[in-house]
Structure formats: structure tokens, C-alpha cells
């Protein structure tokens, strides 16, 4: 029962006669699962499969005698479909590692299945900080970003630069509540005040009444604790009601460069957000972006794509050292032992709770006249050093962390 989207087989002849490595079924199978056709298709989607492929090529797996196959699938942002795919992938198709998986509800479901079957799970797309907290397992590593890092980056940095009164517009479901809660905690810790909040039904279409309440509250910052099309709609309608012109600023607590692209700079200018990676930060990133977009219909890589690249690179590195892919927990243990280094994220490490550590960045969206062209959207407002960017190890409640 095969379930492949855009099947990209990198079947390499096992030419090296001196290979001592024993790969289960002779092949290292990487399964990239994400939203291939819905809201998150642009920030993950087929781009993540491409990023994985580029990672395998750059690693030189062929020359090292490692036969690698990559398969992709669409989970349509539903935990039941995601679980189904992963279960079949592992049971029937002998996939060894699951990569990406945006949408926290799916990631949490996959997290459990991968643990039960002792494979490896490298999360790049999902946000739930519980993956390295109470839901942590010895088989999962959380790459790229999480809700705590976002709340910390955006909340902290904004309060420090004068945005000390907040009004939250929250999507009324578990994720929205978590985002609101984490950010409110950071705001208050830094001396700011939460002057009001309103929960909108999820998914929502018309935010006018809630935005009206936000306007009446006269808070300096309106925090959007929602995601995807809810965020885009809130921002569009806020611009319709002249909220930014009226002197209030919008803080998107979960937004990606692809959202800015969908909104256009005219509507999105001045928006403040936290991301883990941006293509225009240095030469290595720019080079990667150029190569990537050429194969991705001109769409530039998001931080999720970069995370997939980095995760797959490190996975292959660990496999090379361990010379076996059969025991998922052992591979992850190796990945935590070896410090990480790749051209996109530089040097970093994977902590005991499965959290990958690297710096985070606070970005502000440029005004239309400041941008030199498509995808030139951000200016850096602040860099959050790696040791402050993520939740402290002891605060997570991860059972793997011995106290």
C-alpha cells in the first residue's frame, strides 16, 4: 500500500564494497509529511521534500555508501489522517524517520506513534512546546521553533521597546489559548500589562467586532494569538478599520514569511514577529534560497524548510557515526551527543529534552518603499541569543530530564 506524493527516490547503488553499515532493509527511508495543499502548503508542503533532498545531496550520502529514499505525504492538517499515514508508513513501507509535520495536533499524534514503534521523529513545522515538555520522548527532536520561543521573542522584545499595554485577540481553541497564556506571562514578567482579551471562534471569518473591542481598549499592542488564515484575516480587517493608522500596533504571535507574502507589504507593514531563520541574513542562506527557489516555482524557503534541511543533515551525520538506523532511540541519543553544524543554522546543539538550540530573531515587516523586491520583507529588530531563546531545560516538565 503505497502512499507517496511526488515520490522522489534517491536510490543509490551500494557501490562501496567496504561499507560496514547495516541499514534496516538496506535503505534509509525518510518520510516527509506535512500539509501539501492547504493553508500551510507554502511554508512546508513540497518545499520540505525539496529541502530534504537538498540535504541528502549536500551531505554526499551517495559517496558514503548510504542508500537514501525520500517519500512525501499530505496529512491535510488532520491528526487522524496523519496517524494513518505514519502507521502505514512504519508498518508497511518501513520508513525509518518522519520529518516536518506542521500543525501541532498532528505532530502530537505522530509523536506518540513514533515512540511506540521506536523510530525517529524530527519536527520542523509544528509549534507545540509540549513536544519538549510533558510530551517529550526519547525518539523526538523538536527543530526550528516552538510556542515558548515565539512568545518569548515577540512578547519580550516588544515590551522592552515600549509596547507595554496589550490586548489579545485569541483563537478559541487549545493552541490559541496556549499562545495567549505564554505571551501574557512574558509581557507581565517584563513589566507590561494585559488590558484586555477577547476570544474569537475558531475558525473565524469576521473579526470586525473583536477588532472594534481591541480598538476601544486603547492598548498599544494588539496581540494576535491565532494562526494561518485567522491571522491573515485579522490583519486585513484591522487595516480596513484603520487600526494601525489609529496608533496601535499589531503583533502576530505565529506568522511566517509566506503569510506576509500573501498579505502584501502594503497591508503587512510594521508587523512584528519572531522567526528562527530568514534567507537574507547571510551569504550561505542567500545561496541556499536561490538554489531552492529555482526548484520551487520561485517561492523562497521559510524557516520550516531550513529546519528540515538542518534536521536531515544532522540525522545522516548521526547515522554515519552509529552505522545503523534500526533503533530510533539510539539514533536520537547520538544526535543529542554530536553538536550540530550546518550551513543554514551554523553551530548548535540538541538538548536532553529533544530541543534543538539556535538563536531566534525578531523581525519587523518593511514598508513597501523599503523593499527591493519580492521576498525582501524583513528588517532585523533584535537577535535573541541561543541560550535565551528557548525555555530553560528545568521548566519544561520533560520526564527525560533528570532533576
Amino acid at each position, binding site marked *: 500500500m503505497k502512499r507517496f506524493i511526488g515520490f522522489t527516490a534517491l536510490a543509490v547503488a551500494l557501490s562501496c564494497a567496504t561499507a560496514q553499515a547495516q541499514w534496516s532493509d538496506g535503505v534509509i527511508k525518510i518520510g516527509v509529511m506535512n500539509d501539501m495543499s492547504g493553508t500551510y502548503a507554502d511554508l512546508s508542503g513540497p518545499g520540505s521534500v525539496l529541502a530534504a533532498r537538498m540535504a541528502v545531496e549536500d551531505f554526499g550520502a551517495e559517496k558514503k555508501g548510504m542508500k537514501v529514499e525520500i517519500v512525501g505525504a499530505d496529512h491535510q492538517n488532520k491528526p487522524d489522517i496523519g496517524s494513518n499515514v505514519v502507521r502505514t508508513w512504519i508498518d508497511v513501507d518501513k520508513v525509518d524517520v518522519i520529518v516536518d509535520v506542521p500543525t501541532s495536533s498532528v505532530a502530537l499524534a505522530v509523536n506518540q506513534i513514533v515512540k511506540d514503534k521506536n523510530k525517529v521523529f524530527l519536527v520542523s513545522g509544528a509549534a507545540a512546546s509540549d513536544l519538549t515538555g510533558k510530551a517529550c520522548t526519547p525518539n523526538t527532536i523538536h527543530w526550528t521553533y516552538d510556542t515558548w520561543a515565539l512568545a518569548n521573542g515577540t512578547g519580550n522584545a516588544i515590551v522592552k521597546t515600549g509596547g507595554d499595554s496589550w490586548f489579545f485577540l485569541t483563537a478559541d481553541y487549545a493552541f490559541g489559548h496556549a499562545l495567549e497564556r505564554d505571551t501574557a506571562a512574558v509581557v507581565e514578567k517584563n513589566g507590561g500589562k494585559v488590558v484586555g482579551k477577547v476570544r474569537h*471562534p475558531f475558525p473565524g471569518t469576521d473579526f470586525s467586532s473583536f477588532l*472594534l473591542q481591541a480598538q476601544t481598549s486603547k492598548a498599544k499592542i494588539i496581540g494576535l494569538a491565532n494562526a494561518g488564515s485567522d491571522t491573515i484575516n485579522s490583519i486585513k480587517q484591522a487595516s480596513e478599520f484603520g487600526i494601525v493608522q489609529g496608533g496601535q500596533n499589531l503583533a502576530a504571535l505565529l506568522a511566517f514569511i509566506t503569510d506576509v507574502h500573501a498579505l502584501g507589504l502594503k497591508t503587512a507593514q510594521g508587523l512584528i514577529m519572531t522567526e528562527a531563520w530568514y534567507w537574507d541574513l547571510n551569504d550561505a542562506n542567500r545561496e541556499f534560497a536561490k538554489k531552492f527557489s529555482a526548484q520551487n516555482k520561485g517561492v523562497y524557503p521559510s524557516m520550516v524548510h531550513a529546519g528540515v534541511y538542518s534536521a536531515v543533515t544532522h540525522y545522516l551525520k548521526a547515522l554515519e557515526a552509529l552505522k545503523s538506523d534500526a533503533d530510533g532511540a539510539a539514533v536520537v541519543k547520538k544526535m543529542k551527543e554530536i553538536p550540530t553544524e550546518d550551513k543554514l543554522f551554523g553551530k548548535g546543539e540538541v538538548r536532553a529534552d529533544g530541543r534543538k538550540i539556535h538563536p531566534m530573531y525578531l523581525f519587523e515587516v518593511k514598508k513597501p518603499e523599503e523593499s527591493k523586491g519580492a521576498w525582501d520583507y524583513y528588517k532585523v529588530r533584535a537577535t535573541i541569543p541561543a541560550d535565551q531563546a528557548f525555555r530553560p531545560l528545568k521548566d519544561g516538565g520533560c520526564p527525560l530530564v533528570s532533576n
Partner: protein
Amino acid sequence: MIEIFGVPSQALFGQLLLGLINGSFYALLSLGLAVIFGLLNIINFTHGAQYMMGAFAAFFLLNYFGLNYWFALVLAPVIVAATGVVIERLFLRHLYHLDHLYGLLLTFGLALIIQGLFRNQFGSSGLPYPIPDSLRGGQNLGFMFLPNYRGWVVIFSLAVCIATWFVIERTRLGAYLRAATENPALVRAFGINVPRMITLTYAFGVGLAALAGVMAAPIYNVNPLMGADLIIVVFAVVVIGGMGSIMGAIVTGFTLGIVEGLTKVFFPEASNTVIFVIMVIVLLLRPAGLFGRAA
């Protein structure tokens, strides 16, 4: 500042006005459904997809033909109504002699097809459609800032609703339509082309849906799923109003929009479900709906 139930009166009136705007969409859509059901006894589940097609038609007219919003207001409903004619001729016609439920199932299937096709083609993030220049900006009413466009929505929907009601209830054409539903054979005996009338009525109802879609395009996201959840709320509105009552659909639509707006102020988490709760209450007290005739 006077406070009513702990909410500043200014904010309250602002929310009421916004509720009225939402109510316009409910009214337009339930009007279309009521016309189709009242006169044809078909539940048009495709209504949500046709609303969406209206918005997309406006988008295409603008981006491929350079025709602005004002053209779209007229053209988009006509285009989508034409597809309605095709649907009626090709599919619905064969089901009139069967149980009504088959009509519902067919239109449900059509809705899935249309929404699925659009979704495959355009993704689900949505496409931008700008507010027409002549309606940009807004009025500062003192208690809130009212975007001009939203004010226009209310006025235009009211006009369309009243015009439709007038045509159906007060003109000869409307009389023919109403007679044709009650006794098609007799009406045909009078020499009136009943099948054509039915087709045109369906097309008209569909056109109303598309009109609502065009009006929604500048303020809500133009995306393939914009009608899917909305249509179920509109069903509830029509059940509350009483199926087949034109005036009932209009009044209920506007009223429920206002009620929903108030809920957003006092109890925002429930704003999604308040209309359904009201439906349950109305059904327990008046099974035929507020304005409906007893089954």
C-alpha cells in the same frame, strides 16, 4: 459614558451596527434559499458553493478582464446564475418526481465537487480582492468608525431583499410563480411555461447567492471554503424563519445577525453557536418556525 450591562454604550451600538452588516449576508443568503425552497421544494445545498463562485467570479472579472466591482455586481450573479440553469436542466429536473431528500443529496454532492475543484485549483489561503475606491475610507460616527463599504452592504442588501419580496408577493410574475408551486398542472393549463419558470426561479435564487458572494469578496477572504460553514448557519436561519416564507427569511436574517453581534460582545465564545441554540429553542416552541405555515 453610559454603560449598559457593563459595556460602554458606544461599543454596544458599534457592535449592533456590525451585527446588522453580518445580518445582511444572512438575509441575502437565506432569501435565496427560501425562494428556491418555497417555490421549488428543493433544498439547495450548493448555495454555499454558489456564494463562493460569486466571489471568485468577481475576482476573475477584476484580475483577468479589468472589470471592477460595479461590473461584478451585475455580471457575477448572471454568470453564476447561468451555471445554475445548467444544474437545473441537467440534474435537478430529473428529481422532481422523487422524494425531496434526493434533491438535497444531489446538491450536497455538487457542493463537494465545486468546492473541491476550486480548492485544488486555488489552495485554501484565499485571494485578495480590494474594496472599490469609491467606497474606501469611512465615517466617524462618534461611537465607532464605520467603513463606508460596510454601510453600503447594509443598504444594498436591504434594497435587494425588499425588491425580491415585492416581486414575489406583489407582482403578477410572482403570483404565477406562487401558483405554479401549488398546482403546476393547472398553471400549465393556463398556457404558462412552468418548466422555464422553475429554471428561472432556481437561477434567480442562485444569482442572489452569488450577489452575496460579490459583496463579501472585499471584506472576507475570497477562498474556496468560504461558503461551506456559512451555509449550515444559513440553514439554521431558514429553519428559524420558517421555510418558504420570504419575509420570514429576510427578517430572521437581519435579526439573527444583530443577535450574533450582541453575543460577540457579551459572550464571544458562544457567537458561533448562538444561532443554533436559538434554532433549538424555536423548534421546541414553534416547530414550524417563526413565520412558517404549519407543516
